């Protein structure tokens, strides 16, 4: 499944912020970001949360109960950002 423009931008941010050895366009939009899938851990999620707050002005708290859902995939993360960014 191809990424749309917003998802690709976010994928690029993830790759650059986390110094991942993968091309942004190759991230599966529905694959998990945690553990299996992209293989991110809790430190990556913190790093990504801060990068997102700086780029999109959207705050994601590490203790948020919704985090598992928000970070479940690139697509869900992008949806969360788009819903909460001041437009």
């Amino acid at each position, binding site marked *: 499944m191809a990424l749309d423009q917003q998802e690709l931008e976010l994928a690029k941010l993830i790759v650059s912020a986390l110094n991942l050895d993968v091309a942004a366009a190759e991230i599966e939009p529905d694959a998990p970001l945690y553990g299996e899938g992209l293989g991110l851990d809790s430190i990556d999620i913190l790093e990504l949360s801060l990068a997102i707050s*700086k780029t999109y002005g959207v*705050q994601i708290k590490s203790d948020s109960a919704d985090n598992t859902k928000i970070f479940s995939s690139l697509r869900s993360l992008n949806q969360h950002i788009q819903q909460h960014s001041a437009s």
Partner: protein
Amino acid sequence: MKPVYLADFGLACSLGRGKPEVLAGLRQRSQPVATRHLPGMMGGDFPYHAIPGSAGDWNERARELVRRVSEEAGGGLIRNSPLFIATSSFDIGAAERGEADIAYDLFAAKVADWLAWTGPVHVISTACTSSLNALLAAHALLASGEVEDALVLGIELDNRLTLAGFAALQLLSTTTSQPFGLHRDGLVLGEAVAALRLTTGAASRWRLLGGAHVVDGTQPTGATPSAVVAMHRQALAAAGLGAGEIDLIKVQAAGSPVNDGVEAQGLREVYADMPPLVSLKASVGHAMGASGAVELALLACCLDADAAWPACRDALDEALGVTLATVRPEGVRRVMATILGFGGSHASVVLERT
């Protein structure tokens, strides 16, 4: 192995500067906590346990505090002995203001110069556990007979880097530190300078029996239950004691949602019959590299018969299965003192009243 004693100590923290002020501060039960503002989306206002009544630029203030605290501990008596400086932030507070260059040896030389120290200087930096690791290194050197005296000096003073780093890691409370608390929501940082003078030359009220440090790199920012258990068991073994012989444990319990639970879980596994527990974080904040030294000094103060005991104001989290002593336990002889921290670092030392 020669017995190592805590000859004397000095401290400055948010409760006050020097033992009398600190004890008076503890009796007040409600300490005013300063606020620090951090920029950015994830920034904002954060409580901070600042040392009261200090003026001057960073270096001047640090020099005054370091001299005062070392003098209170009797550091002037042993200037040709090893000095162990424990810190996670060095003089970064001065570097942020353009008042220092960042270089370990320059920092060590500056502190040595403030104290007119002529002996060897070692700087130990293992984040939150720096002071306890300095204490363990000094203990080993003294116990082996290589030297007779040493001063362990924990220094952690106002800087933005530590506070902003903790904020970026989303570890800070925006309200108060609530050790083992039901509504705990993070750490409150603090600044402190504390000095512990060790000797093998003469017995004193407290003997340092030894301790343990366990690094578990699988969790780079927090504790793991297995390492908490290993740390307690190794510290007990180093002290030659069984779990049933500990009369009081000074826990880390900084009010962290996850770490407090991990620590409680480890404690329950090691101590079938749980000794009284005390946390000092609500009183002085978490003073990072100085925390081990300042909390041991404060604990020694609190264990004096007529001293106040750290207040425990918040509702405890019953799910943790541990509780905090609300009054000073009677007849405390052997004390375990723990600091947990960054780098998967778990450290504990054991003191015995002679």
